[in-house]
């Protein structure tokens, strides 16, 4: 068996097996789910150091050929391993999550497995049409997951499928255009990614630009960048948390950004204008989504808007076109998957135990859900870009990228977005874990190892990827941008100034090699740890009183804390009350900017079909007249 096939085949076959099983055997389905995702993880991990390719002729479509061609370089095998890992954690979590409160409905595990297979296939595919096929498999499974998961999930699933479907069609068009351009240029295997990498398509002419924009649309729809983002918040409210965790973790973000990275680094050579467009979309996404997020009172929707917002950083980073920015963007994709999956899974625990996602009705749960609290804290700090966690590293690289690309405007936007993210998560932490606890939630506690293990793993990964950021940077991101991994595992790419290799790359990609600020995660962590230590010591020795709790009396009666409880959300009202911005945000909440809803209203043409035979006959004669005219005068 070809080892390259295994990451696709294992989840694929187990998925089909699970699909064939009757719904009663859910234990077996769960086992298959765990087995399949773990298998994918192991099989992909085995590929980490391997450069391999697999090739089978499949079929010819006119000038193009659809081959079953897979290829693993450092980047793709890392991405697949990541997908496998996330898949495994999500399935593990699902086993716990679905235990009592709610049962899996529809083909849940088969869909997860097939989605994993699809994602792995899309990442590994060396033939662009094959990529499209796997890509659509992911969309389809996502639709089925959402549509059958909850009775109320159908509209959200439909919306997601449609918007992602737009992206799929754009991808298909882009791929076919690419293939035809290359076939016309007389290249063999015009659809092979390796051919494209060897002969990137210029974006000087209209066709090249169209190809890039189509790819961008496909990636934006999949990853959820504005204006194709609206399916994510809708979906978040209507699907189970594990599914939402799976989305950024294994599917949409990874695939969309993977594609964008491939496109702008290898397959096309985007012009400055197109890069600017990418960055613009990225920065708009960052800001708009974070503002929307601050408005939310539903934890799932809030997280979903953050998921959108983070995509902006990735696009911004990739759009800079500078080495450090691109690497930052890709790295941010991995980091985002980790902390965002962690956040969604934590939210899932909160929902399961507290029974609600309304921030107003939550609070003070840090003692009830200590593990969840800890993990969420780490993940929230990470998403807000607090050092030394992973989110900081990648954001830092994106900032640097903006500087190097000479776009200080975007830098400011990115920084501002980061601040707002932090503010937003302070709100979340406050309203869920701190503050006064509603009495109804007194009995909440954590149950189930299957729920906690994935959280811990992900939180740990947040730290590891932050402190030892050089490892993924060297092993995964470096190859992605065309850098050889260093012979010894140690030492950062960025630090060691091995950018000379980069300078030799095509002029388009050349970035100023030496002159940018650097960040050394290990030493920074050490310094931070030192600082924290000092602070703790001061606190301890200074005998500082952190908090005192006393009952408040009015007229001799103690006031019920429930009455005086201030949910964290109260503090963010002002954002919605700002002139101008507030109105825009309110419109956003109503769905005015939601392309999907705009398409549903189209009454004008129907009025033409009056039902009168005379009109219809008249059209026919008019048509005949025009045809006759055409045939006479040409």
């Amino acid at each position, binding site marked *: 068996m070809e080892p390259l096939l295994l990451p696709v085949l294992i989840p694929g076959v187990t998925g089909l097996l699970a699909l064939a099983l009757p719904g009663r055997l859910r234990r077996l389905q769960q086992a298959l789910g765990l087995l399949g995702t773990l298998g994918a993880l192991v099989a992909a991990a085995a590929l980490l150091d391997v450069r391999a390719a697999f090739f089978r002729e499949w079929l010819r479509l006119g000038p193009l050929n659809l081959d079953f061609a897979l290829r693993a370089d450092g980047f793709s095998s890392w991405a697949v391993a990541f997908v496998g890992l996330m898949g495994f954690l999500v399935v593990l979590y699902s086993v716990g999550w679905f235990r009592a409160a709610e049962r899996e409905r529809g083909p849940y595990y088969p869909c997860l497995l097939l989605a994993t297979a699809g994602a792995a296939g899309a990442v590994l595919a060396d033939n662009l049409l094959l990529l499209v096929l796997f890509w659509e498999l992911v969309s389809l499974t996502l639709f089925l997951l959402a549509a059958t998961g909850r009775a109320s999930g159908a509209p959200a699933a439909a919306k997601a499928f449609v918007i992602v479907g737009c992206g799929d069609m754009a991808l298909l068009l882009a791929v076919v255009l690419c293939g035809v351009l290359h076939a016309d240029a007389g290249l063999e295997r015009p659809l092979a990614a390796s051919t494209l990498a060897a002969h990137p398509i210029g974006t000087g002419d209209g066709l090249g630009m169209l190809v890039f924009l189509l790819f961008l649309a496909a990636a934006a729809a999949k990853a959820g960048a504005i204006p194709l983002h609206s399916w994510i918040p809708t979906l978040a409210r209507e699907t189970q948390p594990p599914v939402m965790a799976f989305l950024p973790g294994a599917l949409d973000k990874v695939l969309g950004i993977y594609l964008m990275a491939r496109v702008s680094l290898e397959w096309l050579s985007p012009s400055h204008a197109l890069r600017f467009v990418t960055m613009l979309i990225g920065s708009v996404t960052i800001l708009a989504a974070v503002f929307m997020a601050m408005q939310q009172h539903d934890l799932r929707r809030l997280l979903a808007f953050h998921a959108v917002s983070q995509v902006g950083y990735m696009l911004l980073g990739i759009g800079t076109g500078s080495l450090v920015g691109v690497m930052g963007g890709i790295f941010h994709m991995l980091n985002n998957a980790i902390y965002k999956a962690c956040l969604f899974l934590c939210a899932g625990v909160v929902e399961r135990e507290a029974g609600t996602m309304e921030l107003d009705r939550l609070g003070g749960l840090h003692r009830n859900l200590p593990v969840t609290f800890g993990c969420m804290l780490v993940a929230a700090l990470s998403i807000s870009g607090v050092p030394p966690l992973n989110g900081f590293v990648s954001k830092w690289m994106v900032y640097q990228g903006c500087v190097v690309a000479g776009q200080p405007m975007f830098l400011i936007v990115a920084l501002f977005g980061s601040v707002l993210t932090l503010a937003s998560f302070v709100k979340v932490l406050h309203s869920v874990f701190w503050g006064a606890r509603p009495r109804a939630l007194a009995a909440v506690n954590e149950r189930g190892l299957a729920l906690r293990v994935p959280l811990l793993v992900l939180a740990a990964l947040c730290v590891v990827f932050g402190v030892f950021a050089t490892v993924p940077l060297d092993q995964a991101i470096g190859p992605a941008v065309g850098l050889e991994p260093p012979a010894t595992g140690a030492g950062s790419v960025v630090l060691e100034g091995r950018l000379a290799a980069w300078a030799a790359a095509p002029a388009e990609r050349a970035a100023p090699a030496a002159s940018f600020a650097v960040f050394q995660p290990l030493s920074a962590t050490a310094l931070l740890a030192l600082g924290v230590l000092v602070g703790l010591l001061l606190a301890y020795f200074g005998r500082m009183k952190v908090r005192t709790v006393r009952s408040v009396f009015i007229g001799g009666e103690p006031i019920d804390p429930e009455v005086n409880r201030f949910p964290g959300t109260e503090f963010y009202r002002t954002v919605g009350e700002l002139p101008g911005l507030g109105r825009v945000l309110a419109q956003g909440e109503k769905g005015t900017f939601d392309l999907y809803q705009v398409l549903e209203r189209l009454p004008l043409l129907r009025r033409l079909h009056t*039902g009168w*035979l005379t009109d219809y006959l008249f059209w026919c004669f008019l048509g005949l007249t025009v045809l006759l005219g055409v045939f006479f005068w040409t």
Partner: protein
Amino acid sequence: MMYLLALLLLFIGLYGLLVKRSLVKKILGLLIVEHAVNLFLILVGYRSDGLPPILLPGEDAGEFVRASVDPLPQALVLTSIVIGLGLVMLMVALSLRIHERHGTLDCSKLNRLKG
């Protein structure tokens, strides 16, 4: 010129089909259209001072071939007439039922299906 008159007849039928509101008038319009097309086909096969394509006893075969009109369009028209008969019967059946169900034969009131 002869063809143009047949064409004119066709257009009169189309006019009836298009403008007249009564279903019966529409049927008549279609009948006229069919008449016109049949006429056109026969005109196409006509030979100046031609004779029917029926060989009579004792007639010279060579003379027959030279004098006869084109028989093929006639065969086509025979078929076409019969098709027209069928169409008219179907239309009458439909109008009868439409009158029963809608209570009118006014075509402009037949627009329940639209949009």
